[in-house]
């Protein structure tokens, strides 16, 4: 199965927070809440982060990442729904972003703008870099029922 079911797309589009897990060189897991967008055309997740942050540091050494996006219900575990994305991250530093890639990057910024409208700002002196996560596998759960979608 290579198509992502609409249920999963809905979760990816409607949730503001994702929890990204990277590994330090000594295999110590590190988790950070992130703002992210999903681009359905490339089946890729994007987020922005400071180039000096721990997660970027980790990704540069080990690109394997896991991301959880979930909706939780404090009173009923059967209403919990979420997904675990596993994939490989690539850091696009401003120098690396080739001219022919620029339009694509701008498109991604547009997706950010539409999702996080009031939380966006444009900065000239930003040290932030764009990171893409190429999705390998998505596990989806509703309450205790799990399904897995493999993209690769």
């Amino acid at each position, binding site marked *: 199965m290579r198509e992502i079911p609409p249920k999963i797309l809905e979760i990816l589009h409607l949730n*503001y*927070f994702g*929890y*990204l*897990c*990277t*590994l330090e060189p*000594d*295999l*110590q*897991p*590190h*988790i*950070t*809440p992130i*703002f992210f967008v999903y681009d359905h055309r490339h089946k890729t997740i994007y987020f*922005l982060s400071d180039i000096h942050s721990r997660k970027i540091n980790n990704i540069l050494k*080990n690109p*394997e*990442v*896991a*991301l*959880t996006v*979930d909706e*939780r219900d*404090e*009173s*009923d*575990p*059967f209403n*919990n729904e*979420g997904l*675990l994305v*596993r994939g490989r991250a690539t850091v696009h530093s*401003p120098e690396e972003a080739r001219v022919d890639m620029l339009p694509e990057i701008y498109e991604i*910024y547009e997706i*950010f703008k539409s999702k*996080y409208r009031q*939380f*966006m*700002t*444009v*900065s*000239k002196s*930003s*040290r*932030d*870099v*764009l990171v893409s996560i190429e999705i390998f596998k998505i596990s989806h759960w509703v*309450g*205790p*029922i799990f399904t897995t979608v493999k993209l690769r």
Partner: protein
Amino acid sequence: MRWIYELIVEKIPPFSLLPKVYVTTVQLLLMEFVGITIALIFELPPNRAIKYGSIIIFVVVLWSVLTLYIAPTIRSFRPSLSEEENRVIETYKRILFHPKHLEVVPGLVIFFIFLYYFFVINPNLLIYYLGKNHQGVLVFAAILLWDVSYRAGLGVWVTYNSLVRSILLLKISRRRKKLEHTLLYDLRSMERMDLNNLVFGLISLIIYPVFQVDLFISVSIIVYVCMLLIFSSLSIYFIRKVPWLPPDIMDLLNEGKFAYVGTVESIRPHVTPVVYVFDGRYVYFATSTVSKKYKNIKKVRKIAILIDERDPTDLFKNKAVLIKGRAAVLGISSLLYALPTLIRVRNLFHRKFQKYMGVYKRDKSKLPKAWQLTPMVRRIPVKIIPEEVIYWRGARKIRIPL
């Protein structure tokens, strides 16, 4: 600042020339050599002078080992993130490493009391240990007495000041605000140091047989041991009660319900939501033995757990705490040593998630077959042993680079 004994080790040959690990061994051999030589030259009674002398030398060296460990630990405490607590720690360091070497004072007191006792009150004791012609070895005996007194004094001095430090820290920690706290690492080293002091006290019992012929000295040793044991155990008790997290994070951990647990699967990360409880010291979550994270933890114990609070109306009001460390699985075998913990964790879960867990019981039929057969028994609590804590308050805006 250094203690006198440390200065000797650092500045005076042969000790200053040796790698640190060998210092105490060489000290032991050297003292033994000198002691036995003197005993043979002056024909001292072998089974008293040599045997008892060796025991005393052995204790002196054991104490030296602990001293060389304790001193750098005390100096290594970093500034606390609470100004008041920092003042307590700084005062503690300043008293222990006073430029006027206050640490010698208790040792001097002990030394002179025993000097007076041996030479004035009970001179027969010297004859008992060293024989009738002991004039020639008095200097060596006095040096040995000083070695014992100095370290015994140091033990009392450190233990007493540590107790005062623990009490003050606990008292002040109750008034903390927002992010004020003393670093977990330092609290742990304080606890370890107190444990050392406890061992220091127990070591003095080794001397007991040497002096059991004399009531005054035996009683002094017992009193000394009790004092050290009581001081250091109280100090451990109080320091363990000092919260290792600032109030803001404690609140977050107490109020939160869900957490995200990160584990390692070979070289890939894995992250899933869990429900958790916090007992004021540690975070626990429960997991099924068939879950991926359980299998991961069994192979690699490194773990991260993130607990956050989100405000749906304002993304910037979120806060999060990330605890990185090791996972301790409280399985069947832990029933033996962690039963109180298991009961406490179970009660915490029941209180916090009464409704949530109730749903599982009520709608059992909705669960997958495997879960229905193996209900809560196969859910095992996991304790997070923290090594690093990171705290975020308020997300910053998403900045688009230009």
